[in-house]
């Protein structure tokens, strides 16, 4: 299922980026107070997702995702 795969890609990315994280709840922020991604890490996540799925919510969505749930929703809607 695409959403499950998207969640797995995010986990792989966070591990590669040496990010500490617990459960990826839908309301977990990608930025401050959550995963603490900086701008380059957000760009990298965008690229990794596009590489896997051919599109990503950062570069093709109407609004930039702020939370894990908003990233997953992009693939849920696809």
């Amino acid at each position, binding site marked *: 299922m695409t959403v499950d795969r998207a969640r797995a890609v995010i986990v792989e990315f966070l591990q*590669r980026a040496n990010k500490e994280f617990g459960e990826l709840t839908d309301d977990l922020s990608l930025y401050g107070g959550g995963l603490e991604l900086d701008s*380059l890490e957000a*760009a*990298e996540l965008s*690229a*990794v997702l*596009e*590489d896997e799925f051919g599109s990503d919510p950062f570069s093709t969505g109407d609004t930039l995702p702020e939370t894990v749930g908003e990233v997953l929703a992009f693939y849920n809607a696809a």
Partner: protein
Amino acid sequence: MTAPIEARVALVTGGSRGLGAGIVEDLLAQGYAVATCSRSRTDQVELWEKEHPDRFHFQTADVSVEADATRYVKDTVARWGRIDVLVNNAGVAGEGMIALTDDGMIDRVVDLNIKGTLYVTRAASRTMLARRSGAIVNISSVVGLSGYRGLSVYSATKAALDGMTRSLARELGSRGITVNSVAPGYLRTEMSHGLDADQLKQIERRTPLGRLGDAEDVARVVSFLVAPENRFMTGQVLVVDGGLTA
């Protein structure tokens, strides 16, 4: 997507003739898979297609058009699985006194030399970021460093590329991506900055090494910069001009 090719994959914009063709030829000789593009095909392109059917690809594209630039990059990734090297070579010269320069010439030179380079780099950097690896070379020019009468628009665009090189080197270095510029001097190619024969003879006389450059002179430096062994040099502008600006 097909299985990733074993050879290192290089994108060279504007590789159908002149300096770009010299860069493509050098990378092919080293075993790279090379995808190049330009607005029209040439006999040289058809020769490479016959000689290297598995690791040469040509695509008609005007990279000053965002959709063309992005499609060119994405098609290459779809074909070969990744991009290891990007050489931003596509460019156009424009000669004339600034006081008499028309809007069309400014747009044409800025759109291809700056915007086109940014479009291709944006798309290629994404696939490099995903793999945390890559080498980018921007072909700028000595006229962006030293200036030349009548080449203000062209010089402005080439100096812009050197600025882009330094910023991108800082931006992408932590992800294993190097970004450098090669600034050629005056070459014996079809596009020597729009200069006439008398101007080129004068430049030749003033050049310590006593001649104009060849595409191969520049291609060798590009190959050095993109070699996988070169992993600690980034954000630099290498001048290849026979000593003219020494």
